[in-house]
């Protein structure tokens, strides 16, 4: 097991704890925007998609990457926009 992997596991475990802490403070009123917003955040896989599509032009990997970019981008743009749309409706 190399050092980098170990660091990644550290990061993973600590991030899960941060996630539980932060998200358990979100009130039920905002749970739907939370879901659509966290959906947009899971579109972070776009990073991997960009690297796959851009780094090896003309290969199978690039094609898979292109499809991944489209799908992840739907998630990112759609997710943040619809969350914003919902949150603007909440008024005092």
């Amino acid at each position: 097991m190399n050092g980098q992997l170990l660091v990644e596991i550290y990061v993973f475990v600590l991030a899960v704890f941060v996630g539980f802490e932060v998200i358990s403070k979100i009130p039920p009123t905002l749970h739907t925007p939370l879901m659509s917003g966290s959906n947009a955040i899971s579109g972070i896989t776009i990073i991997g998609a960009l690297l796959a599509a851009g780094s090896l032009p003309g290969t199978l990997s690039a094609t898979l990457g292109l499809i991944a970019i489209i799908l992840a981008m739907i998630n990112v743009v759609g997710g943040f926009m619809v969350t914003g749309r919902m949150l603007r409706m909440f008024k005092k």
Partner: protein
Amino acid sequence: MWLAALWLRAVCLECSKNKIIVQDIFIPIIYLFSAVLFILGLRQLSHPRTAPKGNNTAAIGMLLAVIATLLNNQILDFQTIFIGIVIGSAIGAVLAKRVEMTSMPQLVALFNGFGGIASLLVAAAEFYKGEPLLVFTLATITLSVLIGAVTFSGSLVAFAKLQGLLRGTPIKFSGQHSINGILAGVVVLLAVYAVLDPAQASNAVLAIIVISLFLGILFVIPIGGADMPVVIAMLNSFSGLAACATGFVIQNDALIISGSLVGASGIILTDIMCKGMNRTIWNVLFAGVGSAIEGSPLEVDPMKTVKSYEPEDTVVIFENSKQIVIVPGYGLAVAQAQHMVHELQELLEGKGVIVKYAIHPVAGRMPGHMNVLLAEANVPYDSLYDLDQINPEFEETDVTLVIGANDVVNPAARHDVNSPIFGMPILDVDKSQTVFVLKRSMNPGFAGIENELFYKDNTIMIFGDAKDTVSKLVSELK
């Protein structure tokens, strides 16, 4: 945002003399910055006032992550990327703008699915690069495609059920659980095989993808429509975990952190939904609840009678109340009565009555759904109360108005050990002075359980379409 991009460009030009600094230090630091923005964004989501800002914060984090990635000198082909980004953004924007608030669960299910398949594709792309892979990387690839595929096909089934393309009742056949178990076992064996013999891994990975897609379908079809909120929350969690697994594949901390945040969020929401129904996650996933509704009519004790009023007869009671609590169920959204209810609220408040809304955790079709539907109808968020906040208040409430809710106000959950919903947390509406129940007819609700609330002395039924009834109340109050 554009300023940030310009700044980045300037910094990048400065660094172009020294590529290593950009690749190994600058880009990872931006990723860290993105992750921090995601966490801050989620934190601002803890209050409706700061929440829109939180959403923007997270979106800026995403933009930074994308820009940082484009600075990577491995990227040679920007044209493909540009095409992908334009197409994806356009589709996403149209979906986000067009969707009705009642259809939000379907949209989230669909997005979950896209997130899952995108992570799968990224892992697969890494695999098909043809470079020699570490054993650990191979193992994470199998995990990533497994989670990604189950999330994708499972979410599509959930989408089809919510959209009415598939029937909502559980689809069950004998030996279902054994088949799922065998398929899961085969996936594990294939994963082990791929890791042990990397030369032959190609077919194994393909087989894992195909079987996992089937697993996702088989996993969601036996789950009833009423349990879909739990399923969506869980698939939400899976889409995060898929991104996380892919993060291990391409060794990217941004994916690992963001994926874990989403994974944690989905787990918390799944737990809340299960508690709201007093069920365990295993019961939701494997019991196929909701299949036995047809047939057997309810046995109603002929001695029991209900009182029913016309809407016009109730106005005096409303006007003379100090506090009124409205309990909205999904029936209210189906009848599109939210706006009318808000009008009723404003009229009553004009007469000095305090109006509050009691929202049960499972009132809508996904966590927090009812709150969004009411917010859309301009109901202010500070009049929305959740179960724990409102239950102590019913004793001081003059009138409770139940609109399109049924099982969540059934007192049997508190005391009748034989009731299927015994132990489920309910809104104690029966403790208020008078309860008005707006209902189409005496037909039982989704779960097919008789509601003893309707026969209580302080309960008065108002039969008819919810929107009609509320609009009659509104015109009488004017």
